[in-house]
């Protein structure tokens, strides 16, 4: 890795249940133009290549959408790639884009991730009859609920933990003008919601969102003159087998290895002390304590205590998801890149009402599939 990579432009759409006012291309352009403007660029002209990421094509009904979108994204005459690594795709996509800068191939790369969930029904798109396999018909919640039950049982976690995360993330979301859900909820209200998949209540799940996010990544040369770029200090991806018999899906090895790899690049030995803010992929609220442990912010079995002690709130010691996170906004394919982009916004000091004071180093985290795919980056206000 020879060249430094900086995030010089960040843009996202207003996320909502259904962006009927824009087409798929229009949704992406909304995020892209905001990112270009943030980077001080007037048009796509100064972009060398485009890297897009999204979850399954079936969510929008366009196969290999980079073909349809090439024109709308100013990619004509340029290289364009489309990454797909399940829920971690937003993170993986940003990492491919950063590689194109770090290896000196391009000076400025536009990377985008998106989902327009209102075009289909993701819950059922996730539960099809797969050729030559038995049909699960569970959706994501049905898949993850047993893992959450196992986490609670294994570590005797406080049963309110998931509800506390939901209240906290929704409070954070109120500070983020782009968030889909703007909900003021009390703990009692969250606890009173119906259970969808024991122990996951309706109030403890993410919404289905339409939304897109874009970043302009640049070489050190191209980042000159940019106010407060976020420097990429480390990137990593890890995958483990889906059906390996001894997989620990509650604290996956792939997540631990990915974190270790990205911390080593960023020179981080104690993430709780050295990372100022983390944006992590929490589609069901109980995943906050699970990932706190997997990412090394807490000892195994102690993640839920950090949450219950209020340490993960904005203004506390280890703020997690000050943007409101996936619990407030879930355009699936974009959710991972939103974590990466929000981490970059924090170290740039541009997160507005949900800014963590003095944030210098931030973690962006994404996971996907049945917790077998991970993508992470560490960004910093300081050059590597």
């Amino acid at each position, binding site marked *: 890795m020879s060249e430094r990579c900086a995030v010089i432009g960040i843009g996202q759409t207003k996320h909502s249940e259904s962006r009927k006012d824009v087409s798929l291309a229009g949704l992406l352009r909304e995020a892209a133009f905001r990112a270009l403007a943030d980077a001080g660029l007037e048009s796509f002209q100064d972009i060398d290549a485009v890297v897009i990421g999204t979850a399954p094509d079936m969510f929008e009904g366009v196969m290999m959408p980079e073909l349809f979108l090439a024109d709308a994204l100013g990619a004509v005459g340029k290289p364009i790639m489309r990454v797909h*690594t399940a829920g971690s795709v937003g993170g993986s996509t940003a990492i491919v884009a950063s590689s194109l800068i770090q290896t000196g191939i391009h000076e400025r790369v536009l990377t985008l991730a998106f989902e327009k969930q209102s075009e289909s029904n993701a819950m059922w798109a996730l539960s099809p009859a797969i050729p*030559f396999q038995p049909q699960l018909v569970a959706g994501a919640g049905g898949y993850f609920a047993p893992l959450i039950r196992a986490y609670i049982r294994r570590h005797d976690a406080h049963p309110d933990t998931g509800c506390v995360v939901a209240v906290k993330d929704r409070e954070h979301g109120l500070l983020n003008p782009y968030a889909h859900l703007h909900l003021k909820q009390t703990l009692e209200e969250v606890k009173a919601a119906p259970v969808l998949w024991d122990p996951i209540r309706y109030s403890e799940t993410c919404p289905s969102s339409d939304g897109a996010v874009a970043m302009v990544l640049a070489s050190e040369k191209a980042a000159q003159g940019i106010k407060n770029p976020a420097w990429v200090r480390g990137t990593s991806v890890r995958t483990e087998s889906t059906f390996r018999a001894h997989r620990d899906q509650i604290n996956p090895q792939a997540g631990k290895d990915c974190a270790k790899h990205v911390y080593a690049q960023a020179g981080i030995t104690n993430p709780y002390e050295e990372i100022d803010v983390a944006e992590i992929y929490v589609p069901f609220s109980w995943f906050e304590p699970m990932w706190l442990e997997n990412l090394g912010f807490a000892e195994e079995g102690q993640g839920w205590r950090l949450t219950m002690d209020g340490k993960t709130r904005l203004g506390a010691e280890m703020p997690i998801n000050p943007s409101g996170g996936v619990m407030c906004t879930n355009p699936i394919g974009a959710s991972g890149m939103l974590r990466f982009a929000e981490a970059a916004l924090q170290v740039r000091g541009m997160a507005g009402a949900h800014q963590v004071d003095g944030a210098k180093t931030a973690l962006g985290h994404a996971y996907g599939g049945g917790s077998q795919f991970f993508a992470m980056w560490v960004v910093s206000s300081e050059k590597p």
Partner: protein
Amino acid sequence: MRDIAIVSSAQLPSVREMGPSDESELVQPVVTKALEAAGLTMDDIGFVCSGSSDYLVGRPFSFVAAIDGLKCWPPIQESHVEMDGAWALYEAWVRLLHGDIDTALVFAFGKGSLGPIPDVMNIQNDPFYVQPLGLDSISSAALQAQALIAAKKATERDFAEVAVRSRRNAMSNPNAQIKGEFDPKAIMKNEPYIASPLRKSYCPPLSDGAVAVVLAAGDKARSLVKRPAFIRGIDHRIEPASLGARDLTVSVSTKLAAEKVGVSTGKVDVAELHAPFAHQEIILREALGLGDDVVVNPSGGAISANPIMAAGLIRFAEAAQRIHDGSASRAVAHATSGACLQHNMVAVLEGE
């Protein structure tokens, strides 16, 4: 830039219908064979990248099942593109340029037997203005072929000759699906048009297949095999999706990518071109500036075996094979994506 080479590859023989084999069963045999050919195991591999499409299987996350065809424990560094495997090779090439790892495994798979492929490909089109027209992949290719005839750049006889030559070449390729001696005149006389001016013989077969390629950097590559195929340049470019916005008789994106990688800076011995339809070889030859002295598609090309999502990466495997066996010193590999050659990748491979 770091020298990166293709050191080995393996393919499943393409067939019309493989039967009830799932993604991991397609992937496992080619991955195992390609690694063996390089004298490596999964534990030696630094990065894995694959290419495939959910829409061929008719399910989301088709690639997730594929990774269980390889050993992912301890966890691996892995990525996937919902594109032809050639773009997975590109991502792996970029990853190797970082310099912290020396080897990568790339694979791609596609089963054309699971659905009506020409109709499925319509889902690539603009969802508002084109998809409702039902423009299938054969019809759009026919528009391109007709444009070529109208511009007097080719005749139907030229299409027939490309097909006949390709399928003659395929006779020496154990992985090819359509092979044999055919007569251009007989094709033109006996075969009805599917979509004028295309007859069946000018179109690719429907195929099930898979391919794996192993990449290695610098001296690692030299230590693994006798004659690595070094990637001297690789680039890809896209054009607008709208057929009306392009001159379909030329491939400006191929030409641009070829300029970026310096195809014309040396003698090209052999070229593996991803031309699923016969007429597309004619367009690509011109865009790449290939003369009559260049051996084109000795494998028989995609018109002889076309597992979608793998057929582009197969071109890289086939071009590298000519370097490995010493029959070529400098080869061009090309891959395409989208209707009427919308997105094109060009690479120059060389032996030492």
